[in-house]
């Protein structure tokens, strides 16, 4: 099947909560192997947008397509994850009562049914893959520790590692740099750029240094719709953007 050029396609998406329009006629495209940064003030609709894409929130209206053919509004979270959309949350969400290795094992691409997991046996390839991931996220020496004992930054990394373990086509990453040291932030940016070579990535971030470090196209959201789009320099010189966001 011919692959669609745009991996993710949102058109005219609106969501409202008790009258409050969280997304207002939002339209937005992400290309294959593209990395996109999303910025916007609090309440601009960034997280709601991610919720809509991953099936957590149903849009009131609008079109959501993945890979050109899949109507995302007709599927739930688990199915959407199965199509190849991975998500990292703003607040790092790992399974705190399980070991780092088990966290990755749970995320690792494998059959997801209950009977498949009940009779699951680790094989060599999977073990190697987890070791690789542990190396990538620099948690090799902590693999048997509980995820809950990790530092905030390490949890962020673990979650990114879990995202990689899923091997999705599209990664949605919410504020990966929050709470990281400068060095960690820089390393994260490197990692994301690396990932973006073979995956599509959407990053939501407040930290302008980080966004600059990514060096990718930026979309500015405001009140649930796109305010501006372009390079960081381009949007930061946009008067509307300055008014609503940067100028504050």
């Amino acid at each position, binding site marked *: 099947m011919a692959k669609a050029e745009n991996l993710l396609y949102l058109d005219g998406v609106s969501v409202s*909560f*008790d009258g*409050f329009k*969280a997304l207002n006629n939002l339209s937005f495209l992400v290309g294959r192997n593209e990395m996109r940064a999303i910025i916007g003030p609090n309440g601009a609709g960034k*997280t*709601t947008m991610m*919720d809509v894409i991953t099936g957590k*929130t149903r849009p009131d209206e609008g079109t959501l397509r993945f890979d050109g053919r899949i109507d995302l509004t007709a599927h739930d979270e688990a199915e959407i994850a199965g199509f190849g959309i991975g998500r990292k949350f703003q607040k790092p969400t790992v399974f705190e009562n399980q070991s780092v290795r088990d966290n990755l094992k749970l995320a690792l691409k494998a059959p997801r049914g209950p009977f498949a997991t009940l009779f699951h046996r680790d094989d060599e390839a999977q073990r190697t893959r987890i070791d690789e991931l542990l190396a990538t996220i620099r948690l090799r020496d902590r693999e048997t520790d509980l995820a809950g004992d990790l530092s905030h930054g390490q949890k962020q990394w673990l979650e990114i590692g879990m995202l990689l373990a899923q091997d999705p086509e599209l990664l949605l990453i919410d504020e990966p740099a929050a709470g990281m040291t400068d060095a960690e932030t820089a390393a994260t940016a490197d990692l994301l750029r690396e990932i973006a070579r073979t995956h599509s990535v959407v990053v939501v971030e407040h930290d302008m240094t980080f966004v600059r470090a990514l060096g990718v196209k930026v979309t500015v959201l405001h009140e649930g719709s796109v305010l501006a789009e372009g390079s960081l320099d381009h949007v930061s010189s946009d008067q509307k953007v300055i008014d609503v966001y940067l100028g504050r």
Partner: protein
Amino acid sequence: MLALALLCAVFAGTVQAQSADDDLRARLNALASGGFDETQRQIDAIAATGDPRAAPALEALSEGDLYFRQSDSAVFIVRTEGSGYALQDPLTLEGVGTAGRREVKKIRVNNRLRRVIRTALGTLTLRAPDPAARIEAADAIFKAQDVDSIEPLDAALAAETDTDVARHMREARAAAVLASGRPTQDKLEAIATIAARGDRDARSLLTGISNGPDTALHDAANAAIAKVERVQGLWDTARNIWFGLSLGSVLLLAAIGLAITFGVMGVINMAHGEMVMLGAYTTFVVQSLFRTAAPEYFDYSLIVALPAAFLVAGLVGIAIERGIIRFLHDRPLETLLATWGVSLILQQSVRTIFGPTNQEVGNPSFMSGAFEIGQLTITYNRLWIVVFALVVFTVLLVAMKATRFGLYVRAVTQNRRMSASMGIRTPLVDALTFGLGSGIAGIAGVALSQIDNVSPNLGQSYIIDSFMVVVFGGVGNLWGTLLGAFTLGIANKFLEPFAGAVLAKILVLVFIILFIQKRPRGLFALKGRAVDA
């Protein structure tokens, strides 16, 4: 001469009166002897005199207040006084001294005699000055279908000026006519009169003659019954709605405190029912105090019991919050276990202190009895409970939405840390909120003591229903609790007539389970991102 003649006449009158007086007294005294059958004959004889002065004695007999002196079989109306009785002359109603418990003996009556007395009184009091008494008299005749009363009724009707009383008398007369051997034409008229009443009693009378031999009567009665039944279908619906509202208000009362402790604070408070129970026992204690200290103000006991119950249950609630629940803020499900333990302890405490048996909580006079709107019998206690539930709901709603305390409560339950950093004393707010919820449960107990058992098990019977109501309505939403309570109440009452009480309850539970599938967060669910938090 004339004067003498007058004097004679007066004297003769007095003598005559005197002899009538003696006669009546003798008849009253005769009540003291014999079994029920003998007593009945005496009552009939008294009624036959038509002397209204016998009415108080007959009333006393019916109430069980007519006694006779063991020594001379003289009959008196008695009132308990100290350890003995105060005696009253049955005719003159003057006080005639006292008697010890062993000196007088009650004249026994049973239901049959009470019915006989009621009919007798009906005839005797048809001309009573009080219109209410006349209506009562007419109704008694209506129920008894006393054929002998037709003539007295005719006489009374001729003199009657009050249209309402007259209507009752005509109906009574019609009822008596139907039972008499009067011609068909009279009876047809009577059927029309009774059909106009349109209530159950009318239907009862008409059914009685619908099987009779006379086809004309038969048809008329059946037509009238059909008419009465049509009207009753509508009244039945109204009745179900009222019953539903009434049950709903009971559920609302039981659940509303839980809507605070569970709905707002998230504490799975299994001891909630015991708070209701504490309120009911507080009512009992307050009433006992009133009974011993100030029986004449008994009607005000509930007004005193309300704040007392609020305080008792509220303080116990605060103690539970301070002693147990505050340590469990981050473990809401475990509050279930601890409060379950608390509920066991509270139940057993009450059982130890008050004993395991039911305690008597009386209805004050304004909560006793019933009145009728059309054919809808509305009992005062149910009415007051509906009103009371709505008042409590409104007050609570205002407290939560419009006061500073309410603001604090909402702030603390939404974001404890932030509230604390803004200077709200969260421990105090927690304790007061839990106290408020418990206190409200306590005053619910005051209301429920009016219709239910006051026993250590009282709380257990409401706890499940309360949780159902709160969850059905949507946790954390007072309006949801209100609507949930009334929806479940009315649904239950519409199901009950054809499904029976047990099945109705099962169906309502199944309905709740299915409803939660449709709306996993109840009737009034919060929407938006915050929901999952």
